[in-house]
């Protein structure tokens, strides 16, 4: 029997167990996407609550509630950032079953863990995004009588979210890779599927090579998509520079993807009338 080469093995593994890899990748993406989205929402809510200003004249109940809420959220962030996701997974899945007889199915437990874990990181990322916005805008919003909620949703968050999009993308990519730790609670994601295939094919190198390529394709595709979204969010008038300092000309050079494009402004039309 002729010895099989590396590529022979890869080919054989892909053609025989391709379906297992694909369904594993599907589960990985499902967990990563839902986890990142829910985590992002948790992050937004936590950051909004944590930035509510407390004033000396506020009533006692409000102060106490906010203080307690802030303390809980601080503990939440510290605990979930400070412990490995693998440990969290063990505690949530097996721990809950043992101590409280709560029997989650592995996929639900996986999504839950990734969500709250991402939420802890996202809270800090969103807080950073909020703090990057000029204090003057908070003051201005205050001066026209906006509520904290109005200030956040109308003024601050649209800018903050735009600023934290790269960091959010990072979290997403990290989540795709980190779902692999969920194999300890037997979620059939890509790593678990690979381990199973390895158990059948008895080839470690080639099997995990295939898994590595799939992870790389997933993360690469996601980063490209995120970059595209970022560009879209910048808007099509992403950057406009005044061509001359003299206002009457009103001639602007618009830069879009490196191409120069001249734009006649409404002003010019009205002048010609």
């Amino acid at each position, binding site marked *: 029997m002729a010895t099989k080469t590396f590529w022979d093995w890869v080919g054989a593994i892909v053609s025989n167990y391709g379906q297992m890899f694909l369904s594993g990748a599907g589960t990985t993406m499902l967990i990563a996407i839902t986890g990142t989205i829910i985590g992002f929402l948790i992050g937004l809510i936590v950051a909004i609550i944590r930035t509510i200003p407390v004033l000396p004249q506020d009533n006692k109940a409000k102060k106490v509630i906010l203080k307690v809420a802030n303390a809980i959220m601080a503990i939440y962030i510290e605990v979930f950032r400070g412990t490995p996701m693998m440990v969290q997974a063990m505690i949530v899945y097996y721990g809950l079953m043992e101590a409280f007889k709560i029997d989650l199915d592995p996929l639900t437990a996986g999504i839950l863990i990734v969500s709250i874990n991402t939420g802890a990181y996202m809270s800090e990322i969103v807080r950073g995004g909020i703090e990057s916005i000029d204090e003057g805008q908070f*003051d*201005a919003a*205050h*001066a*026209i009588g*906006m509520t904290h909620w*109005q200030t956040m949703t109308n003024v601050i968050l649209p800018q903050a979210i735009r600023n934290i999009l790269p960091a959010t993308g990072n979290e997403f990519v990290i989540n795709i890779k980190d779902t692999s730790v969920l194999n300890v609670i037997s979620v059939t994601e890509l790593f678990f599927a690979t381990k199973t295939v390895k158990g059948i094919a008895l080839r470690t190198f080639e099997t995990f090579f295939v898994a590595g390529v799939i992870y790389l394709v997933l993360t690469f595709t996601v980063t490209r998509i995120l970059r595209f979204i970022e560009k879209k969010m910048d808007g099509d008038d992403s950057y406009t520079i*005044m061509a001359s300092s003299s206002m009457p000309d009103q001639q602007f050079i618009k830069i879009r993807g490196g191409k120069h494009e001249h734009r006649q402004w409404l002003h010019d039309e009205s002048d010609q009338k």
Partner: protein
Amino acid sequence: MSETVLEIKDLSVRYEDCDVEDLQVMDVSFEMKKGEILCIVGESGSGKSTLIKAIHGMDRTRVVNGTIEAFGKDMSGLSKKDRRTLMGTDIGLIPQNPYSSFNPIRRYEVQFKEALSAQKMEYDKEKILSVFEKIGLHDGERILKCRPYELSGGMNQRIAIAVAFLFEPDLLMCDEPTSALDVTTAGMVVDELVKMKEEQNTAILMVTHHLGIAARMADHIGIMKNGRMIEYGPAKQILKNPQEEYSRKLMEDVPRLKR
């Protein structure tokens, strides 16, 4: 005419993060009546802007001592909700730095809508354009389609002024509203403010380090130094016959045009 709009007694203010001893405003007292223009003059860091922020009850200011009464209500005792209803429509603000006050990436049209909706006011384009016209912004249609970074500093500042004008407040606080404007436009804004006072009986508290502007519009002038109001009185008296050494020096330091 003699209705008191703002009454400040022995006011001391510090910033949230600073030590108690580190007061930005110390023992300031004054009173403003309807249709009165008070100009507060002083060097940078003398506490002028902090005073305005404290009256507004900005989140980071803390009143250590004294009272602020606006329209007969004790401001530091008001709940946030009650205070919000006063903001904009009763107490207006022209911020010092429009670049840091507007959302830099959104069109002014959207920002005007949002600002007006905070006090449940209708977005009335014609009205905005007419306010723009008054302070020398002639191509309002285009401005509304622009974002702050697409316009010059002076234009942004005038847009901030327009926002304050739209709300038609009874008490308008201006924090160096003309710092980025050329002399002609600054004059235009001052005239508009004076007109506002005359037509709507607005009380205007103006912070500036431009004595010329103070001389042109003020009924009363207060001079601040190191957080204290060292001199306060009718404009003519202060300009002609300043009592304090520092005030005299301040008057002498005004650059004059020699012809």
